[in-house]
């Protein structure tokens, strides 16, 4: 792989939570680079602090120590695309209302933001569902709305926090193929968090494996497998076994 421009750089990011009688160190000295337009997967067992890490990058939580640098300057709120695990759609807003939320909050006029939102609704394959309420959609469709909404922030960085974690297995496979498809068409720098090894190998340009207590970077993997990858491929399986052997079991 050619040398790529770094988009986000994390240096020694640590996070500790203070509880009643002690401090719990969650993240310790996490350093990593996210390259421009790459699909970077952060893989780690449940409860290891992956979401905390993503929230820190999204500026929803503070870090105890460390530094995060963005190549294009620290983004303000609303300048990052974020996809949440439990969709986090506004139930009172239609698909259109959800997707156009970011430009609306920025004060973009109605026609422009509708056009923009429509573009991304089409991109995720939800044309015809603009007026549906989230409640009326299946889990997979809800997360498509979530992805379109993140895209509509027109950010070149997308943070995805276990976006397919709440989906059933079949929909999950389908959405994994779909997110790559969307990403191939509209390249963004993607930071994708998951606890699922197969999902990580299927999706990632690179995989950063987290582990240990407190959580730190354990190892980096670069799947040398052409896309679309197949779960039944021998190389896929070998990498899967390698990562699995190196993964801490979540309690």
């Amino acid at each position, binding site marked *: 792989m050619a040398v790529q421009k770094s988009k986000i750089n994390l240096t020694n990011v640590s996070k500790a939570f203070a509880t009643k009688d002690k401090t719990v160190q969650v993240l310790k000295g996490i350093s990593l680079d996210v390259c421009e337009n790459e699909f970077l997967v952060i893989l780690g067992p449940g409860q290891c602090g992956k979401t905390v890490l993503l*929230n820190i990058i*999204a500026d*929803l939580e503070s870090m105890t120590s460390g530094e995060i640098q963005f190549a294009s300057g620290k983004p*303000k*709120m*609303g*300048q*990052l695309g*974020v996809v*949440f695990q*439990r969709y*986090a*759609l*506004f*139930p*009172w*807003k239609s698909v259109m209302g959800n997707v156009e*939320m*970011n430009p609306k*909050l*920025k004060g973009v006029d109605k026609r422009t933001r509708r056009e923009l939102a429509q573009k991304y609704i089409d991109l995720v394959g939800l044309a015809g569902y603009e007026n549906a*309420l*989230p*409640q*009326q*959609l*299946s889990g997979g469709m809800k997360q498509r709305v979530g992805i379109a*909404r993140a895209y509509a*922030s027109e950010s070149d960085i997308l943070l995805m926090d276990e976006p397919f974690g709440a989906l059933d297995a079949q929909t999950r496979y389908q959405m994994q193929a779909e997110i790559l498809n969307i990403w191939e068409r509209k390249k963004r720098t993607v930071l994708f968090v998951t606890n699922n090894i197969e999902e990580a190998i299927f999706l990632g340009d690179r995989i950063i494996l987290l582990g240990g207590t407190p959580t730190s970077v354990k190892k980096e993997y670069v799947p040398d497998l052409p896309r679309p990858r197949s779960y039944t491929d021998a190389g896929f399986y070998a990498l899967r076994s390698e990562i699995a052997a190196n993964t801490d079991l979540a309690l």
Partner: protein
Amino acid sequence: MKQSTKNRLYLLLPILSVLTLLAVFTLLSSQEGTLIPTPIEIWKRFWDMMTIQISKATLPVHVWVSLKRVLTAFVAAILLGVSLGVFLGWSPTFNALVSPVFEILRPIPPIAWIPLVILWFGIGEMSKIFIVFIGSFVPIVINTHSGMNSIDPLLINAGLVLGANRSQLLVDVALPATVPAILAGIKTALSGGWMCVLAAEMIVAKQGVGFLIVRGQEMGDMSQIVVCMLVIGIVNVLMSTCLTKLEGVLCPWQFKKAK
């Protein structure tokens, strides 16, 4: 059992239960020397009251007088109650400042205010309205406040990463998320307010359904009392039905389930 048979049964059972009640009622009331008016007497009395004036008003006018008191107080209670609840939920400082006072006043039954309110406002309209206000204000504040407190933090985070500033977060995220809780509060408040107006009217009033009941007691007119009791129940049912309809219009996302 087949589904269609079941459905028919479920339609039939409510009718059966009302008929049974009516039958038992008739049986008891037609005994010699009972103090219960018969359904026919009640029905006749009802039609009399629709046309004959008691204290310068027919039954519909009395109902309207009571309703007007409730609705006036209600508008004030919604405006002030929702604002207070929202601020309690939105600002921890305001909450710490105001909550203790509210918590002390909250458990006092609205009816306990009546003597004081009469001393303050006399026996005019204002005293009744004030009692209803107290009775409906409290549940609206409590529901709005707890609705604000139980907003899914994920939705707040979503609002933040989408770029909402603090006032946008309140208007575009927190308030809509709280609407169902506010409506639930309004529902509770409406039946609470309706009870309060009757209590207030029973103590001091020249018109209204509560006044009619007391007048019935003074006259020994049991039919009139029962007519009023039934009217009170029916009006309450009608009001909640309207509110449920309103709920469907204002927050369809609470009701439209996945296809």
